């Protein structure tokens, strides 16, 4: 009897409940980034001119390309769920794989961008940066910390999606039971939204 009871609680499914949990988790993520945006707001308010000057050091094209990549990955993510729901497992797998690929491309791009900056001696605590104005030190501090933590989220997202890919192949996720994939999608889109705000705040300062 005990065994069956255990089984029953394992197979007990509450889709709304699972999604609720995921959304609540995303709320915490929103406020985690919120703390950083608060810092950004204060320091930009204090040093508007220096932020402007410092932002010229960032390449708008790279930022725009990364925005394009991430928005497209959000599309493939959303499509993959629809495909699965419609019973098209193959298409869903392809789309999931594409999402991962685009995520990796985003990170690759970021890596090059960071690499170039560090190569030019611009990184937190570098001598090159410390001789500049306080606003610029803070701008690049915020740039590295915020895009860094965002990049970490993309990396985690890729990891999660890899698991989802395996689950879908194995059939643990199918057209009837896709809440895991949907929750991963929520996370992925959330990370995308963060970037939607980071892009104008760092690359498009006028």
């Amino acid at each position, binding site marked *: 009897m005990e065994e069956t009871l255990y089984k029953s609680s394992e197979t007990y499914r509450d889709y709304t409940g699972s999604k609720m949990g995921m959304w609540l988790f995303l*709320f*915490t993520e929103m406020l985690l980034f919120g703390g950083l945006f608060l*810092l950004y707001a*204060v320091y930009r308010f204090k040093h508007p001119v220096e932020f402007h000057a410092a932002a010229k050091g960032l390449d708008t094209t790279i930022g725009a390309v990364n925005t394009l990549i991430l928005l497209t990955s959000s599309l493939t993510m959303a499509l993959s769920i629809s495909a699965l729901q419609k019973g098209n497992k193959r298409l869903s797998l392809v789309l999931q794989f594409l999402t991962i690929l685009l995520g990796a491309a985003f990170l690759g791009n970021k890596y090059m961008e960071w690499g170039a900056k560090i190569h030019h001696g611009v990184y*937190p605590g570098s001598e090159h940066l410390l001789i500049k*104005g306080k606003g610029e030190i803070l701008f690049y501090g915020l740039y590295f910390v915020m895009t860094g933590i965002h990049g970490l989220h993309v990396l985690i997202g890729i990891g999660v999606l890899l698991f989802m890919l395996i689950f879908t192949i194995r059939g643990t996720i199918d057209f009837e039971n896709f809440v895991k994939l949907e929750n991963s999608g929520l996370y992925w889109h959330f990370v995308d939204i963060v970037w939607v705000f980071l892009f104008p705040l760092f690359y498009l300062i006028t």
Partner: protein
Amino acid sequence: MQGNNEPKSFYESGGPHKGILSWIFTTDHKRIGLLYLASLFIFFIVGAAFGLLMRLELIAPGKTIVTASTYNSFFTLHGVIMIFLFIIPGIPVSLGNFFLPLQIGARDVAFPRINLLSWWLYMTGGILALMSLFTGDGPPDTGWTFYAPYSIRTGTNVSLAVFAAFILGFSSILTGLNFVTTVHRLRAPGMSWFRMPLFVWSLYATAWVQVLATPILGITLLLIIIERFFGVGFFDPSKGGDPLLYQHLFWIYSHPAVYIMIVPAMGVVTEIIPVFARRTIFGYKAIAFSSIGIAAVGFFVWGHHMFTSGISDTSKAIFSLLTFLVAIPSGIKVFNWVASLYKGSIKVDTPLLFVISFVFLFCIGGLTGLINGTLATNIHIHGTHFIVAHFHYVMFGGTAFAFFAGLHYWFPKIFGRMYSEARAKFAWFFLFIGFNILYFPMFILGWQGMPRRYYDYLPMFHELNLISTIGSWILAAGLILMFINLVRSIKKGERAESNPWKGTTLEWTVPSPPPVENFEEIPVVTQGPYKYE
């Protein structure tokens, strides 16, 4: 445990694992609640030991037992352990885990495995915090607030302690989102929002605060670590940073955290009063809404921790005004509790005894809070022993006394045994007297101007410090007596029936201790929680 017809208790059927593994890998909310209870107990003892050592050092001016830097790490660790490992998780993770599903007629919380993960994270955080004592360049010496830029400059092991607190925050978030989802999704049929026990209301309000406030602490602590390793300069004035922003971020979390600590305690008190007065609670909705009200307004008053920090006078005035508004729902609760005793049929058993002393001590804590919230007086007592006394009256006299009340109240349900009533009251006497001797002198000390976190003090403060230290010994004796009574009764106490106090909430309808699945059949609820007719 009893006849063959009764389902086996959750002690006897541990799932797929055996022995200790059946505990540390359990997903049963009751077992997790007990895991937490045991871990809380251990950390509480460690924290209390640091507290006693601090008091011993302060028994006389000058060096008594330790050096200044050791003393500084004593109060840091006392704060970190008591706040992050005991009083913030405290009631929700132990009593809440155990009784939330039982009180709403559910078999478990919404995410049992996340519940277990949250305990594991809690233990990881706790062990890391203790490890910061023995590794690196000595235990942290910043105070539990980790104020920048000192926390960035000091050579002690701040990074590890901060990382521990970060992990504990994660654990707290997981508990919060679990409880919110549980309350939304798993209430038994007929259990409408206003038929929920008020303890559940308080846990629900708390869970939202945990979800919305804790991430700010997470990022703040992460930034301290980043500052220490990479020198980004967010809080370092020489690089343009603003140390006051650290304080803003820190208190944006840590003031709501005060309500994470006290609101569940208020919930426990609200459960106990009707049961021992054998009458319904007075003003159910007022109490429920005041829980939500405290939780909501609590988000917007953090600035009162910064009245002397150099923030703008405009923001001080607004924060002070809002601080007074948060006092009102707390007042409503106190008045409703007292009114719930009116025309009851009262028996002062140990749980009610603790509750009555809770109301008294909490009133002192709350009313002195008005003195702190007032701008003019705050300037004088800010950062003095007055504050230390105030928050110990709220946190220890409030939360911990309510925790003890809840432990006694639910003891028969959790363990299926009764504790010794006479011994429990005897221990209460020492606790209550010792508590007041320990903390009341600090109000006077603070008003006379003795700052907190002082290793050494002027001779004029000696007498009151001596009295306070003596009080700490009486309080410790009370704690020991209480714990001995409870621990002993787990095995040796009389068997308890399923409803020894004649409570009316759902947890009293199942056997003591409850079976694994809580309810053989999910109950259908047809009325409010405190119906005595």
